[in-house]
């Protein structure tokens, strides 16, 4: 449904990039042949299952595994005591403690032991036979409660040097960003808004549960197949925890049924490897949905205080935010990203953000699509909306007036190069959605969003086959269409048809280090490496043609998929196509390939503006999404279908976060809704078609102008929907999710 609304002309003519070619994984996926994590098997494999804490916070006094070990069909039982005693960095030590609890169970669902047995039935019985002696401790799951004096303490002395003396022991870190003078700026304002906002933890909600299969031979060589966003990270983490050389552990990534950041993690893999080692058998582990919700990363819940001053004509004079995010039982909530991104869309003279990283008795948070940014944007964009409306100003005009542009010093430090925020706002203002009529109990909301995007370690290998087709090996699981995009960029660069290129996701034995699929980095960084690998292969092919023609390689140029003689002294040789060069490669120096390794800078920040209409049922508080339009800068949309899919997917996950998704804990600290029935992600019938408008402001950091598009789309929806619901219901909603009981109560209380 994308409108063809390119705001900036392409800087070059593309033949393949920008088209909507067939995706290479489509047939396997729609016919059920694609192999996901749980589809991998090995001869003689055992079933591995995890015993999990039923308590939110408890000291583990002892674990008696003897009865389980004595059962027929049980081949191994492991606890944290079985991990080799290795000194690890803080982050990896937390991962290990999260895989199998050490001294304390820190949340409902925390893994405490695991078994490998010949059947699922026996493994389940063995779990029941493990006796854990717990000393139950007081618990805390709310971010604001956790930092009150007297709150139960998770880790004594856990905070780092950034935390001021006398702070709550549940604060792990403090972050501060900004410039100017807030108090002086607020004095210049005609109106100052101070308001607090809360969001609940939400899960990434990927359809495929975590799964892996591990083997570990007596010779020290190990293999792991798993569903992950980064098998190189899995390799490095498992090797560290188990004391293996990274080169001895080969990890192969399966097809992936969604991740959204939640599979940049390690939960089962080291446990499966220990069970495999202890049993000398392959061990397969597959989580249930309940385990996924109880024990894998949701994102942080948040509590944010905002102070913004605005002049009568809509200029922001000062903006401050204090953000508290709880990231579960370990340090590392994404509050730093929240504090950095909160005011990133605006050109502000006086701005300050302070972020507090808080621990609670909840599962260790994991990255979730633009980690930390949606909650911050919810608070900031809600406050700007309220101020604009209070002053009788157009919310899009207010944003345009304050919008960051090329040369703006961002609130988190850097100075922006060419960016697309203003283009998204102007396009939104001109779009028919903005002026479409609204009915009774209906409202319209807008909000902006920002995401950094990222480069990271990347390796690509591109090989020319003897018949002149091309294979590309990348090291990033294909989570958003990267096989199609890499094939397209390789075909574009080589001047051959898309169908002549096949891209695979290679295992960790085949390429050098690759950063996980995160930070919307793959189309940018792996794309850049693919283009560079293709250029290396082109240089080699020009050299081979020069050899055949007996001229200098510099006198050969590559165009339209063939080597051509160029320049006054090159002669009049007929062009040699890629296939012709490939055919004789054996006689001109051997096989032809190109590869590229890099940690590219210049990912190019990304902005979006979202517009949404809702209708609120005043008698039940139910919210219906009527119309939704995403305006986002893609730099260059390599495969527009996938780009639209990313825009739509982010919007839909944001709709879930805004309206019904939440982690609900009982008084006992136990998760009440560990299933997709009561953890309510939107279903298809809840949604209108999400309309998308792709803008293309080329990223100077990429050969084709590409920017990552995967994450920005989840940043604006929370505020856009809250602004819309507030307009429809007449009452300002500051607490997510806006579930029907909450909206109805707000309407009745006003």
């Amino acid at each position, binding site marked *: 449904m994308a409108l063809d609304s390119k705001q900036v002309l392409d800087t070059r003519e593309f033949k393949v990039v920008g088209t909507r070619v067939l995706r290479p994984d489509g047939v396997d996926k729609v016919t059920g042949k694609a192999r996901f994590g749980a589809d991998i098997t090995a001869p003689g494999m055992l079933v591995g299952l995890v015993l999990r804490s039923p308590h939110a916070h408890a000291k583990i006094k002892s674990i008696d595994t003897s009865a389980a070990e004595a059962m027929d069909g049980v081949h191994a039982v492991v606890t944290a005591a079985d991990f080799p005693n290795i000194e690890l960095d803080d982050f990896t030590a937390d991962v290990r403690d999260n895989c199998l609890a050490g001294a304390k169970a820190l949340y409902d669902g925390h893994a405490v032991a695991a078994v490998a047995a010949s059947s699922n039935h026996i493994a389940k019985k063995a779990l029941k036979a493990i006796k854990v002696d717990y000393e139950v401790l007081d618990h805390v799951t709310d971010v604001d409660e956790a930092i009150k004096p007297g709150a139960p303490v998770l880790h004594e002395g856990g905070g780092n040097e950034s935390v001021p003396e006398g702070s709550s022991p549940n604060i792990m870190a403090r972050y501060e960003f900004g410039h100017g003078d807030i108090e002086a700026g607020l004095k210049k304002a005609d109106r100052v808004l101070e308001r607090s906002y809360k969001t609940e933890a939400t899960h990434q909600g990927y359809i495929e549960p975590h799964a892996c299969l591990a083997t570990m031979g007596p010779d020290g060589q190990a293999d792991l197949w798993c569903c992950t966003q980064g098998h190189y990270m899995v390799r490095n983490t498992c090797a560290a925890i188990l004391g293996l050389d990274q080169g001895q552990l080969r990890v192969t990534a399966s097809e992936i049924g969604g991740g959204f950041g939640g599979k940049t993690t390690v939960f089962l893999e080291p446990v499966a490897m220990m069970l495999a080692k202890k049993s000398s058998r392959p061990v397969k582990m597959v989580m249930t949905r309940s385990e996924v919700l109880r024990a894998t990363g949701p994102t942080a819940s948040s509590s944010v205080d905002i102070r913004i001053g605005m002049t009568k004509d809509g200029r922001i004079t000062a903006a401050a935010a204090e953000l508290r995010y709880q990231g579960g039982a370990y340090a590392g909530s994404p509050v730093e990203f929240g504090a950095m991104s909160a005011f990133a869309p605006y050109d502000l003279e006086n701005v300050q953000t302070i972020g507090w990283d808080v621990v609670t008795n909840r599962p260790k948070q994991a990255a979730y699509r633009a980690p930390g940014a949606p909650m911050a944007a919810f608070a900031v964009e809600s406050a700007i909306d309220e101020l604009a409306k209070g002053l009788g100003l157009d919310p899009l005009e207010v944003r345009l007036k304050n919008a960051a542009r090329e040369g703006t010093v961002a609130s988190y430090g850097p100075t922006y190069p060419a960016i697309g925020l203003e283009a998204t706002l102007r396009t939104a203002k001109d779009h028919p959605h903005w002026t479409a009529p609204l009915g009774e109990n209906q409202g319209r909301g807008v909000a902006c969003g920002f995401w950094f995007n990222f480069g990271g370690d990347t390796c690509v290998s591109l090989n020319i086959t003897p018949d002149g087709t091309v294979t590309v090996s990348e090291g990033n699981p294909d989570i958003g269409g990267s096989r199609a995009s890499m094939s397209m960029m390789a075909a574009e660069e080589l001047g051959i048809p898309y169908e002549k290129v096949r891209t695979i996701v290679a295992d960790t034995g085949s390429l050098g280090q690759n950063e996980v699929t995160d930070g919307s980095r793959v189309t940018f960084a792996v794309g850049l490496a693919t283009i560079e690998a293709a250029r290396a292969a082109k240089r080699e092919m020009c050299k081979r043609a020069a050899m055949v023609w007996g001229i200098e390689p510099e006198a050969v140029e590559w165009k339209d998929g063939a080597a051509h003689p160029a320049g006054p002294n090159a002669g009049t040789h007929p062009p040699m196509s890629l296939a012709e060069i490939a055919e004789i490669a054996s006689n001109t120096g051997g096989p032809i390939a190109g590869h590229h390794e890099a940690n590219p800078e210049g990912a190019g920040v990304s902005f979006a503006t979202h517009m949404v209409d809702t209708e609120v049922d005043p008698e039940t508080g139910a919210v219906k999404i009527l119309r939704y339009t995403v305006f986002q800068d893609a730099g260059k949309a390599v495969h527009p279908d996938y780009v639209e899919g990313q825009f739509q997917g982010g919007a839909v996950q944001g709709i879930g976060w805004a309206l019904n998704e939440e982690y609900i804990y009982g008084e006992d600290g136990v998760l009440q809704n560990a299933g997709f029935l009561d953890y309510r992600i939107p*279903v298809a019938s809840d949604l209108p078609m999400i309309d998308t408008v792709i803008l293309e402001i080329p990223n100077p950091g990429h050969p084709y102008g590409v920017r990552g598009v995967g994450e920005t789309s989840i940043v604006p929806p929370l505020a856009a929907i809250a602004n819309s619901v507030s307009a429809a219901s007449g009452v300002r909603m500051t607490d997510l999710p806006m579930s029907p009981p909450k909206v109805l109560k707000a309407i009745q209380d006003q």
Partner: protein
Amino acid sequence: MRYLAPATLEDATQMLGSDLGECRILAGGTDLLVRMRSGFAEPDSILDIKRIDGMRDITREDGGWRIGAAVSCAEMGEHAGLSADWPGVVEAAGLIGSTQIQGRCTVAGNLCNASPAADSVPALVAARAMARIAGPDGTRDVAVEHVPTGPGQTSLGKGEFVASIFLPARPENAGDAYLRFIPRTEMDIAVVGCGVSLTLDGDGTCTDAHVALGAVGPTVIIVEAGAKALVGTQVDDAALDALAAACSAAATPIADKRGTVEFRTHVSGVLAKRAAKIAASRAGA
């Protein structure tokens, strides 16, 4: 585990009289199989009633409809006669689960699962449906509201099972409706459910009404005061407001992850009002 699939009612009751350990009845299996898979049920035997004569039939009887216990909700939805007479019951049955689940699940199973939030039950109660129970001493007919006695509990004795549901003949100028509140638009469980069945006379005055609430008590609540609020009226705004007040007053919900007491209490009235409007328009049609 034993799997039994008798072909006659007699064989079934005979089998149930023998020593089967803990035996569960299987019709669509959409509750039982899920419970077994998640470890909440570990029966020694399963008796599948789908092959018993008549269990998969919808038949005309005394002007009403007899629905075999193994008739799927999808089959009910495709039955023109049943849908014309009892659209509220058919709609309620059509709300259970997903399209795939619809092909297997049954209203008899929904009744015997005894969930307070069962969608088809308030509609069946409002329609004054009867359950025919087969057992060692033959069959007996009871009003459907007497089958569930609490969450997961039924009045069925040892060896008994529901063999069919009977919906009585629809009176002239009568209509029924069922509405539920869920936070999403499908694939969910009622936070509040409300079935209304009513009859009008030639002038549009309500002569009979039956109102049932689901998910706001351990079992379905029949709101007699709500019915009284409608009878004798033109089902006008005043009557609907009185109905809503009566339903909110009758609701005895708990607060849980699906809704607060205040929310469920209020929405009981809202849904009753809306369902009554639909039922009245159907009755007048």
